Structure formats: C-alpha cells, structure tokens
C-alpha cells in the first residue's frame, strides 16, 4: 500500500536549452488516481512529464512534491517516492529480465549496501504483477514488444514508489498490447493506490482509462478535469486542430471521439470541407 503524495506545479515554465515550451503551468496531480496528459505532436506533453519527473530543470516556477521543491530534493530521495518509465529506454545487450527489473531497486541502496531479501521480494512481486515471472531468466532482446514493455514497467514497479510517471507507455505496441498495458496500470492503481501520471497519444484510450485529463496546447494547459468534462468537440478542435463528433463508447459508457477528415467521413466530412 502506498502513501498519498501531493505532486503539483507552481507557475512552472519548462523547455530545453534556451527554448521555453510551456509557460506558467499550475496543476495538481490527484493522489491515488490515474492522470493522462494529452496533446498534439510537439505540444510539450513529454516536456511537462519530464519536468514533473525532475529530469528537466524548470525554466521558471517549481515542481512541488509534498510541498518540497523537487529540484532541491536529493535524487535518491525522489527516486524512492516517484518512478519514471521514459519513452525510449535503452536495453543493454544481453541483459536478462530479472536483471533489468532488479535495477529498479537502486534507489533503495547506498554505496555499500548489499542485495537483500526485501529486494528479492520486490522484484518477484513486480514480475508477478506484470505477469512475466516465467520470463525472468530470458534475455530482454528475445522478448516480444509487449513482453518487453511489461519488463520495463516491472522495473518501475520494483522501485516501489507511490507515484509512477510513464511517457507514452503504449507506443510501438499493437492495439491488444496497448489495452493490456493500460489494464495493468489500472490493476496497480487499484491494488496499491499508486498515483499514475502518463502521457498518452491515443485520446480515446486516455479518456477511457484516466480519472483525470490534462490537455496541453499552445505552450500551456488548455483545460483539465474529468474526461467527460475535457472531451468536447471544441477542445479537440483547439488541442488537436481536428473536427470530430463525441459519442458514447458502447463498451465503457464513457465518451469517445470520432474524427472527421476530408475523406471517408460521409456528409459531415463534405460539410467540414466546404466550410474551409
């Protein structure tokens, strides 16, 4: 069971080198819930996540974790509270699944401490939770894309943090594996009350799986709130520059977005085109 942590930003500006991408962002991540950050390409959603995760230094303002400025906290202390699965982590050649997942225990060790029973338990739990206990001795390069993503998530789980940040955890996965990974995150959220923050490309999956949505556009937060509040035709138009219809998803009962393009969109599409 995890502790409820308060992660928020105050007048945060973020970017790379001299380029400021996001300005004056104030947000609070709801504790114990699943938050999805959505937005168009190059909108700054990954920048926001990486700044929250203490990877990028803010250009202005601050990220606060339990009221402490996160960039003033020791890196090891942060890593015991908050984990991050980056967008494209590198798999060292020849590393086994158990070895990779074991790397997640790093923040719980000092310079001279040794691997112990608690580490073993954490790794085993992580492997079991992600359903890859049977693959523990396999080389990571011999796994399928979906299995490999589970292994990376297991590494973040073995870190045993109250907060877990994920940068597009479903990219490069086919649709079945995308659902699989998202279900897994919900399992964790329900069983451990882990606070999850993730950047998601697929707006409809974000709406279905998240409790809280943050839509990033034009260098700031366009809107945030429950998926039902955020997902409107107007929001999609501003955030993605896309015409759409919002309908009810017959499976989940949540809203879902149906895009309108120039082709293959019936009479609505022709209407949209003539308006341009």
């Amino acid at each position, binding site marked *: 069971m995890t502790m409820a942590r308060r992660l928020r930003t105050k007048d945060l500006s973020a970017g790379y080198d001299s380029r400021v991408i996001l300005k004056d962002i104030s947000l609070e991540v709801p504790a114990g819930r699943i938050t999805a950050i959505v937005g168009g390409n190059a909108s700054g959603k990954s920048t926001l996540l990486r700044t929250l*995760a203490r990877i990028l230094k803010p250009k202005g303002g601050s990220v606060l974790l339990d009221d402490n400025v996160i960039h003033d906290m020791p890196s090891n202390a942060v890593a015991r509270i908050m984990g991050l699965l*980056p967008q494209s982590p590198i798999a060292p050649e*020849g590393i086994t699944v158990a*070895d990779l997942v074991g790397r997640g225990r790093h923040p719980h060790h000092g310079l001279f401490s040794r691997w112990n029973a608690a580490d*073993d*338990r954490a*790794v085993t739990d992580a492997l079991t939770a992600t359903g890859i206990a049977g693959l*523990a*001795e396999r080389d990571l390069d011999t796994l399928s894309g979906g299995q490999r993503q589970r292994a990376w998530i297991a590494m973040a789980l073995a870190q045993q943090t109250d907060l877990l940040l994920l940068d597009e955890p479903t990219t490069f996965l086919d649709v079945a594996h995308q659902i699989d990974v998202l279900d897994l995150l919900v399992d964790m959220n329900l069983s451990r009350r882990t606070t999850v923050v993730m950047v998601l490309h697929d707006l409809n999956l974000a709406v279905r799986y998240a409790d809280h949505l943050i839509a990033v556009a034009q260098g700031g937060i366009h809107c945030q709130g429950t998926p039902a509040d955020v997902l409107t035709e107007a929001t999609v138009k501003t955030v993605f520059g896309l015409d759409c219809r919002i309908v009810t998803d017959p499976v989940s009962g949540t809203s879902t977005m149906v895009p309108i393009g120039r082709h293959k969109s019936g009479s609505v599409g022709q209407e949209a085109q003539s308006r341009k």
Partner: protein
Amino acid sequence: MTLIIDTQAAAPASHARNRGTRRAVIVLNMLGLCLVGLIALTLSCGQGCLPPAHVLAALTGADAGGADFVVNDLRLPRALMSLVVGLCFGLGGAAFQVMLRNPLASPDIIGISAGAGAAAVFAIVVLSLEGWAVSAVAVSAGLGIATLIWGLSSGRGAAGARLILVGIGVSAMLNSVTSYLLLDAPAWDRAEAMRWLTGSMNGAQLVQVWPVVAALAVFGGLLAVSARDLDLLRLGDDAARALGVRSDATRFRVTLAAVGLVAFATSAAGPVAFVAFLSGPIAARLTRGGRFILPAAGLIGAILVLAGDYAGQFMLPARLPVGVVTGAIGAPFLLLLIVKANRNGGTL
C-alpha cells in the same frame, strides 16, 4: 504442498539473479587464474627456463643461485608493469565504452591515449621532466583532450558517431605531434621511440611501476564507487535519473577516473595499442553484459599486455614491443566491430 508452491513463486527473481552472478564469478576466477599463470610463466621462462623453486627463492630473497638478477631485476619489473598497465587500460577503456554506449569510444581511438602520449613525449623531450612530473603532464593533457573532444562534438554528453569521428581526427593530429617530437630527439634510439608510438615494456623498472600502482588505487577506487551509477546510465539518461542517478556528476567522475588510469599507464609504458579498446568488448561477451564488465575488462587488459609482451619477446621471429603484437590483434577486431556497429548500431 503449499510450501512447494510458495518457494516456486519466490524463486524466479533470486534464482535468475544468482545464475547471472555465478557466471560472472566463474568468469572472473578463470581470468584471475589465467593471469596468475601468465605471471608465473613470464617470471620463470624467458630466453631460458628456471625451475619454480629458484624463482620462488629469488622472489623471497633467499639464495637463488644466480636467478636473483634475472627474476628480480629483469622479469619482475616487466611483469608488474605489464600487470598494472594492462589493468589501467582495461578498466579505463571499458569505462569509456560503457559510459558512451559504444565500443568504438575507447580512449585509444578517440585520442585520449594519443594526447597523454604526446604530452609525455613533450614533457620528456622538450621540458626534460622525469617520473611523477611526466605523469602529471600526461593526465592534464588527457583531461584537456577529453574536454576538447566533448566540446567539439558539442554537449549533451552524447555518444554518437560525431564524438568518435572528432576523436579519430584529434587522435591523428596528436600522433603526428608525437612523431614530430621524436624526430627532433636524435639522442633516442628506435626502440625507445617505439614506446611512444605503440607502447613497450622494454627496460621497465620498479620505480616506474609505483606511480601506476598509485593511479590504479586512486582512480580505480573512484571508478569502483561510481560503477553502480555507471551501470544504470546504460539504460539511458532519463531512466538512470529516474532511478536516482546524478547522470552528469557520474559522467564527470567516470571520465576523470578513466582518463587518470589511461594517462598514468601511457606515461609509463606508452599507448599500448588497442588494449583499452579490446578489453571491454571481450569482457562484455564473457560476462554476457552483466554488472561485472569493469573488473573483467581490467583482468583481460592485464592478460592482453602480459601475453602480448611475452609473445613479442620470445614467440615471434623478431623481438617486438608489446604494442606491435596487441596492435596486430586489435586492428582486425576494430574492422569487425565497425562492420557490426553499422549493422546494429553497436552498444556495449
């Protein structure tokens, strides 16, 4: 019954981990044995072979019946120098390769060794320095070259082809500096010049060994305390930082340690060709990329130098300096790695 199921459920993590560690321990022990065997061989056999009892007697200071000079003055300094220089090159080379995630990013390819070598020659020929002063100049030059290469391949601590190409360019330039300085030093014979061009153990003396031993203790120690963080950098900067690693500080410490190791070794024995470059990939293959690459690479470096020097002295038609032998092994390996790196991007 439940008990059996329980242990099975708990098994995978610790079991898989132990298996990896066991393999590494076996590999390290084998390499250690190999090294001890080579040292015994070089101490007892040269132009002629001495009985082990005489060698032991000489080493312990007992009456060895004439073996004393051969063992203690000729063979022992040479064996010790080969051992520590090899350890330094192996550790320093693998540290660079792991840190930059590229086997081609070894200090002897990207110009660190060439810089330390050129500076050492400059210090000896032009400044007429000796001993520790030469090492100090070599280390400063090594750090300077590392900074220069980092700067020229512009920031972000990126590995990439750019850094390696810049390094190769810098290396070629520095090698020509060394050649020029050697031309300007007519008092030197060809054998002595060879030390600074390819590395040699000729005329090794115990007094020259101690600075390298000290460097091994200081910089090797620095590398050892950074090893865990360095290992996590292999997962990429973001993943490492998310696990609490201070990536820039780690890179700085590892660079300092690796340059120190390589520069001290170079100032004592010259840039022994390709030892730093060969050790890491061989270690990675043997330990299957585990957490024990660095110690394995150190042992392999020492084995390469000892074996190369022995072969160069006694097993080939002409007496060759160690660098010629290791260079002859290293060059084809370099080609192989370049071909392979083009195919799969090549990490370590």
